């Protein structure tokens, strides 16, 4: 397998053509479900890393709601599908608590989240891609309320979201260090060390 991979790298043109053909075949055979699977995996994996990130938040205990539980917001734009899947991962663990605190997962559309000036969330999990304008508003909100915004979607960390996932040979947390600094969220050094860091 190793050698095969290497040969693939040495012959990028051939591999690119093959990949293009395979991708074409795959798209024609399976339609959009393949890319949907990929996003699903990022959502479910991202949800677990989101839990780890919240657990690594040094001040997480001070971010509970009135009922003593941690309110987690799952944001969507027009489709709750991804949010539902993430909610399932967040809720259905052997121990769904984070740092021994109960978790309350709320699925909220972006429009309502912004309109109502929703507050009191320990963390926000983005389940659908936002436009630059909407993402800007969300980041400003997180900065103002010092809460961690997490997006498993590719490219969002580079756009300013505090946390995400870096998919390489393994999956690692992905941190935007400037956003981390701006929002004032303090993470355990262990977590920062194992995460991939985006510095720009």
């Amino acid at each position, binding site marked *: 397998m*190793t*050698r095969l*991979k*290497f040969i693939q*790298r040495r012959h990028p043109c051939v591999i690119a053509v093959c990949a293009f053909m395979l991708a074409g075949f795959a798209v024609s055979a399976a339609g959009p479900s393949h890319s949907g699977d990929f996003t699903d995996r990022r959502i479910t994996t991202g949800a*677990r*890393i989101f*839990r*780890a990130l919240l*657990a*690594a938040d040094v001040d997480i205990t001070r971010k509970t709601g009135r009922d003593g539980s941690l309110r987690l917001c799952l944001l969507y734009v027009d489709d709750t599908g991804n949010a539902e899947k993430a909610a399932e991962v967040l809720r259905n*663990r*052997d*121990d*769904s*608590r*984070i*740092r021994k605190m109960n978790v309350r997962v709320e699925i909220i559309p972006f429009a309502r989240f912004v309109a109502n000036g929703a507050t009191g969330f320990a963390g926000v999990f983005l389940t659908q891609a936002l436009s630059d304008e909407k993402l800007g508003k969300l980041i400003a909100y997180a900065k103002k309320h010092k809460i961690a915004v997490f997006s498993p979607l590719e490219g969002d960390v580079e756009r300013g979201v505090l946390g995400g996932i870096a998919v*390489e*040979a*393994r999956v*690692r*947390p992905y941190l935007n260090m400037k956003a981390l600094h701006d929002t004032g969220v303090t993470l*355990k050094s*262990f*977590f920062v*060390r*194992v995460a991939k860091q985006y510095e720009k």
Partner: protein
Amino acid sequence: MKNKPESGIRGYGTYVIVSLAFLALLGSLQALIWLYWDTVLEPRLRREAASQADVLAHSQAARLADALVVADPVQRLQSLRETIAEALLFTGPQTNQPLFLGLSLEIDYDVVSAPAGSLNLVHGISYCSDCFLSEVALYSPRSDELLGIARFRVNNDLFRNLSKDVKKTLFTQSHVGIVLLLSAWGFVLILIREINRSRRQAEAANRAKSTFLANMSHELRTPLNAIIGFSELMQRDPDFSPKHRENLSVINRSGNYLLELINDVLELSRIEAAQIHLNETTFDIYEMLDGVVKMMRLRVEKKNLRFIFERMEDIPRYVRTDERKLRQILLNLLGNAIKFTEQGCVVLRVSREDGESDPSSELLILRFEVEDTGPGIPSEERNRIFDAFTQARSGYDKKEGAGLGLTISRQFVENLGGEISVDSSVGAGTVFRFTIRAVSAAASTVEAHREARTVIGLKHQTGSGNDQPYRILVVDDHEENRSLLRMLLEPVGFLVRTAENGRQAVDIDDTWKPDLIWMDMRMPVMDGYEATKRIRKTERERGRNRPIIIALTAGAFREDRDAVLAAGCDDFVRRPFRESEIWEKMHKHLGVEFVYGEPESQESEQTLDDNTITESVDSLSADLRLDFKNAVESIDFEKAMVVIGRIQKEDERLASFLKELVNAYQFDVLQRLFEMERRN
């Protein structure tokens, strides 16, 4: 002509250069492969191996995390140790070496309830310089909380095997490339060998041709020397009757005509062998052009054409260039123009092309134009007319010439540093234009043209600083050539001895001590080269007076001249020689002054103008005109001379003029002159 063996450098030079090029190519290929390996492949393989190490390490993280969340501290520790021990047992499928060389844990005791440091286990090696370090986060399988970090030290064999495999593939491929390159090298060397062989064969053929030409030249010129020389000598004998002297004149002119023919053939051979050399002299170009015009005017007017000669005033009178070549170009172009023009005119223009530059500059570019109102040359033929043995359609129709005139002309123009071009329109005419480079010269530098006068004696009879006459040794293996020079020199007052070969010449030189030696260069027993060297050697060894040695050779090539001068000769005269050349060389080297007889009357050249000729021909009887026309049409020299003898009784001046034309083989001119149909 000696055949030079191919020198070692020339013979092997190409092989060495090609081989060095291939070696450089091989070296470059090897260097590139190493560079590619060092800068591209190896780092990429290392990254690949590090990635594989990460994957391997990550695969063990879940088991370690499972062990960490065991509630019972004792069991947890036990489970951790077992998991680590098992991980350290894993071996690679190819190397059979452990995949993990060491493993250490760093635990977040805020999350894992255990005494601080109690679970920071270290197994295997904790440091190695060439193995991969892979840090893996341990997440709780229940709550996803980060429990700690596991550090795996992954065996470098992963990279070593990978690089070994790739290196093997890379170098196998490069060796295939090198083998192909070596094959190409061998192929190219074989190709060069074949090309060299072909070139040597071609050179050998060329040398054979040159040798043949040299021999032919010698064989033809040697008897011609006797014919021309003796006829000149006999013409001077007052005992001969005018009729006999006239016959001798015919022999002499025929010999000269034959000599010109041989010279033309040799000229073509020189062009083919790229052995044309410039023989620059300073001469009066006005006189030369006038001579050319004079030669052509008669032919032009016999065709009822007009001849216009325009020479710009800024042309300097005395120039230095190759007079013979320039004259031949003009004669070729004007001859063609006259030949192909049936009505209208032929124009010769001479101007200075560099007129706008400094007029006082010695360097000149002379421009010549030969224009005619002939049939013109079609555009499709214009590009080919300078090729050898190629003629325009009209040339074929005329069935005249071999198509070499323009080829020779172009070659000569290029030799003279110029260019030739042609502009023509069918039905309107043709203009040939050419330029040459020349140098303006002063009148004092012009070599005086000695009049063709008969030498009858010496002003001062003695040589060698004493009262003895000049001693001249004639060395030649042909009796007739020796006699010719003896008969030429003795009546003038020189003391002459002869030798049949070089050995005799050396002996006579040793004892008789001649002032000047006429040395034939090709002789049996000992040739002129060897004889000259021995004479020069003796002269150096004994410190005696140095005799002048002038080579006599029938060689056709300039190289012959270089060779005789290198052998020790002082000068060179090509056979067949003219009497005047012998006197000029003796004057030059011995400083002798000659006493000349009165020049012969040139009456026939200056008596008739063109109208008079036409009138004279018209006044001849019809029988004479018909007989002469028949003789001319059949190009019967003897018959023509007989008829001229009859004409002489009626018109002596016309007969003399016609005789000149017959002697000059101007049968075409004579033919047109006696064209009865046109006259009627």
